[in-house]
């Protein structure tokens, strides 16, 4: 049946472009992270209060930014998928989810590791950490929903709806968590990064963030290419079965 095959024949353009972009993004990622880590670990000054443990910030903060950035991407891709029915949009959204979930997990774990030397406990219900935790559950829900459907196309569409619903809720959840946190002001005042970030800290932060972003692009491209090839494979398998029948 030729038409079912046609549907996936046109990501050819994406495959061509991504084949070019992929190696570049991988190299740039490696460079940025190397530079960023060097600046973060050796050049940036230690905090006068927290000492060297403040350096976890250079992984924690960009990871948290990425968690939100990737979710935004997912929501935009989902909207494009639902409104304009572009087949690549679903693949992009679905491919982003585990990456975003991992960034969220990294943010949570590094936040926890940072918390131990700073606040003496492994977990603190600080507004930002709590919001990231809820975001983590939103990611897990998205992944679970998409994978729960036998029909992948239906799962992608259902997950797209969920992504948009979740996206509308992210500011609401963030707002309510901050409200809740100010009501239940913890004993120690937590300041992450301080009110004004000195250039020596800002530069590695931004470099790490950029490195994480190019990492996301690279891994997303890999996942999308894998998904497209996987779909082609399935189509061929079905065609083979039908011809044999």
């Amino acid at each position, binding site marked *: 049946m030729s038409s079912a095959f046609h549907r996936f024949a046109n990501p050819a353009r994406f495959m061509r472009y991504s084949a070019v972009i992929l190696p570049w993004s991988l190299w740039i990622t490696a460079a940025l992270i190397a530079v960023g880590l060097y600046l973060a670990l050796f050049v940036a000054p230690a905090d006068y209060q927290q000492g060297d443990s403040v350096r976890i910030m250079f992984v924690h903060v960009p990871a948290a930014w990425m968690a939100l950035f990737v979710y935004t991407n997912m929501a935009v891709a989902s909207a494009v998928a*639902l409104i304009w029915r572009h087949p690549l949009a679903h693949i992009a959204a679905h491919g982003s989810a585990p990456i975003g979930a991992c960034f969220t997990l990294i943010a949570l774990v590094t936040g926890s590791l940072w918390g131990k030397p700073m606040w003496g406990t492994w977990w603190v219900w600080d507004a930002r950490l709590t919001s990231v935790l*809820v975001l983590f*559950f*939103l990611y*897990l*829900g998205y992944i*679970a*929903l998409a994978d*729960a*459907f036998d029909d992948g196309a*239906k799962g992608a*569409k*259902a997950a797209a*709806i*969920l992504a*948009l*619903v*979740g996206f*509308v*809720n992210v500011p*609401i*959840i963030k*707002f*309510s*968590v901050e*409200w*809740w946190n100010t*009501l239940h002001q913890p004993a120690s005042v937590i300041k992450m990064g301080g009110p004004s970030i000195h250039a020596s800290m800002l530069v590695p932060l931004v470099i790490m963030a950029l490195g994480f972003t190019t990492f996301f692009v690279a891994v997303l491209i890999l996942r999308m290419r894998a998904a497209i090839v996987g779909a082609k494979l399935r189509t061929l398998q079905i065609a083979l079965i039908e011809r044999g029948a």
Partner: protein
Amino acid sequence: MNAFLAIVRRDLKLAFRRGGDAANVVVFFILTVTLFPFGIGPEAAILARVAPGVIWVVALLAAMLSLDRLFRDDHDDGSLEVLVLSPLPLEVVVMAKCLAHWLTTGLLLVMAAPLLAVVMAMDGEGFATLLAAMVLGTPVLSLIGAIGAALTVGLRRGGVLISLLVLPLFIPVLIFGVGAVDAAVYGLTAKPHLLMLGGLLVLSLPLAPWAAAAALRLSLE
């Protein structure tokens, strides 16, 4: 309007005739809250401190337990197609079903709440606010829950997945609901919290049925 009421009336009839389900929700609510004094000790001061939180969390869980049924029966017996084809927009159909759902779950939770406030030694100052907050908050649970129910309606093990999808979205209701009662108990004004709950209700009233309707149409494909 007639069609809207026809749906509400039908769902209420079905809920009453099946009887057990609505009762299950309330019994779960009452039983589970009653477990807490056994778990944390009968000291009134401690119970009172956690009372608003416990009552709200268990209300959330009870509401969530009843969500799987919201659209499943209609999906399984072909009534969903009939509802989609009706002259009523599907979003309005969803609103009707959410209303019926709230009348058979949320409303019952509201009515059981004062009893549980007594069980949890909650300060009398908080009773009225608890009721007001739950009257505002439980419909939001039905509406947001409808989204989760609609997304998972075709899935075999959808019930388990609903909790993962819906509980994160419930958190704002929980925060402002408990905040309202805590404020009342400590002699502060609960108005900002109640206003936030009202805001959530106003926001979810058009948006949740819209998302749920999209998910229902998807389930028919």
